[in-house]
């Protein structure tokens, strides 16, 4: 019967189509949160996110899902927290609304500023900058100190301050975050070599283990440079598909196919990290040993 044949054919086509679709749609990984142990320091890293658009909100949903499985109490931002206008309502639509669950859940956001951020953000309470463009703070767990820099305006006083803070820091882990990447294989901006000249000697000298940056709208983990691991986490809302140089010799792992953010956990001398895409795929993971660890 022609009708039966047509139905059978349709069923076969449908089955094939579903199979193909199932293979093409990324199956979200269950975010198995690393060790996810009591007493560890858990934190998230987010950059270049404050667009107020659908992409940012979708990424934010994934961040919330991840947080539900891996309750990080701290999130650092590597700048470009708000794009475009910064009217009061923008703070809501580009920050407070998308991350409401995190903020309501007590996640403390410690921000650094990017080139799209107005200076007034330093006074915006939920960013916990206490009116300072650059600052440092001791992490709520483990022996860790974070240093937030303001890389669009690296005045000599800031460099002097940074060296003093590093010198006075007794913490095992020194983690630095700011907007402009000292190393990046992205085509849009790439490595900021003049900033690198000023900062890298200090990072090396004072045993900084990890540096988080943004600015380029991709994810990239750089092969350790003089012992330091650099991350570009600039696709928290913005996205520059295909912007990474696939032949870059400095890339340890890159991801420029979708938005991503990073979660990390420190226990003793180990920092474990997962980089999670907008669809929940773990696109990079690993363990970094603290510099100077025995």
């Amino acid at each position: 019967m022609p009708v039966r044949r047509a139905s059978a054919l349709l069923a076969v086509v449908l089955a094939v189509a579903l199979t193909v679709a199932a293979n093409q749609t990324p199956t979200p990984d269950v975010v198995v949160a690393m060790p996810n142990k009591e007493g560890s320091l858990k934190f998230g890293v987010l950059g270049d996110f404050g667009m107020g658009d659908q992409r940012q909100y979708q990424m934010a949903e994934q961040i919330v899902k991840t947080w539900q499985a891996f309750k990080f109490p701290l999130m650092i931002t590597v700048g470009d927290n708000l794009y475009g206008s910064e009217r009061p309502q923008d703070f809501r639509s580009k920050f407070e609304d998308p991350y409401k669950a995190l903020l309501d859940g007590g996640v403390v956001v410690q921000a650094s500023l990017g080139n799209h951020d107005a200076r007034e953000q330093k006074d915006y309470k939920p960013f916990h900058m206490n009116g300072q463009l650059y600052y440092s703070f001791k992490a709520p767990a483990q022996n860790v100190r974070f240093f937030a820099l303001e890389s669009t305006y690296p005045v000599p006083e800031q460099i002097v301050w940074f060296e003093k803070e590093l010198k006075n820091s007794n913490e095992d882990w020194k983690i630095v975050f700011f907007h402009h990447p000292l190393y990046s294989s992205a085509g849009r901006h790439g490595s900021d070599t003049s900033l690198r000249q000023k900062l890298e000697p200090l990072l090396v000298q004072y045993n900084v283990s990890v540096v988080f940056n943004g600015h380029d709208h991709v994810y990239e983990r750089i092969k350790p440079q003089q012992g330091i691991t650099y991350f570009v986490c600039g696709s928290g809302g913005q996205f520059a598909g295909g912007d990474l140089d696939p032949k870059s010799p400095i890339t340890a792992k890159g991801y420029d196919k979708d938005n991503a953010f990073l979660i990390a956990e420190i226990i003793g001398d180990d920092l474990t990290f997962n980089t999670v895409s907008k669809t929940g795929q773990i696109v990079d993971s690993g363990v970094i040993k603290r510099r100077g660890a025995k």
Partner: protein
Amino acid sequence: MGIPRSSIAVAVTVLLFATGCERDNPQKDAPVTSKNSPQLVERQATIGSPDRSVVEEFNRRVNQYVLLQQQAGSSLKKLSTKATPEEIDANQRALLALVAKARADIKQGDIFVPDMQTFIRGLVRRVLSGPDGGKMKSSLMDENPMGVKIAVNDRYPDTIPLSTMPPDILAALPKLPDELEYRFVGNRLILLDTKAHLIVDFVSDTFDI
């Protein structure tokens, strides 16, 4: 053996005329005198640092501005550490209005006086012509659009990202009080009041695009 002064005068005049002809509309938004013409300025400023008196005069004018800003803003309620974005925004706009009113008669070049403009143009060009100048310039021009209209006492354009300042340029410029920052808008170096979001003054054509 000295070169006759008249020959130098002729040469400078010819140079000014010749280079002036290269531009259709030199420094459209900045009054330029023969004294601070960028073409001549470039030659003068590469000679070295500015006189101490130039920097002192600049600092004096900057401090005068800060005093004016503080006085103008004294009537405003001090922002608490718990200020909301609404309060921060309202405070900033109110401060801008008060400062702009208090210095309504100010002109471009009143803080960056001609000698200071000369120094700045020379400095920027010198840094950008160094070995890393190309990279520095691209970093500086990154998301830094040309052709944006700016004026003294205007609010810094909301949709324009802040330019990234090369550390070498910042290190060579006179230190500013906390209320102020140097930034580039296109190839213009502006003095930005970060509390009022106000363009205090600017120098045009600090480098060639």
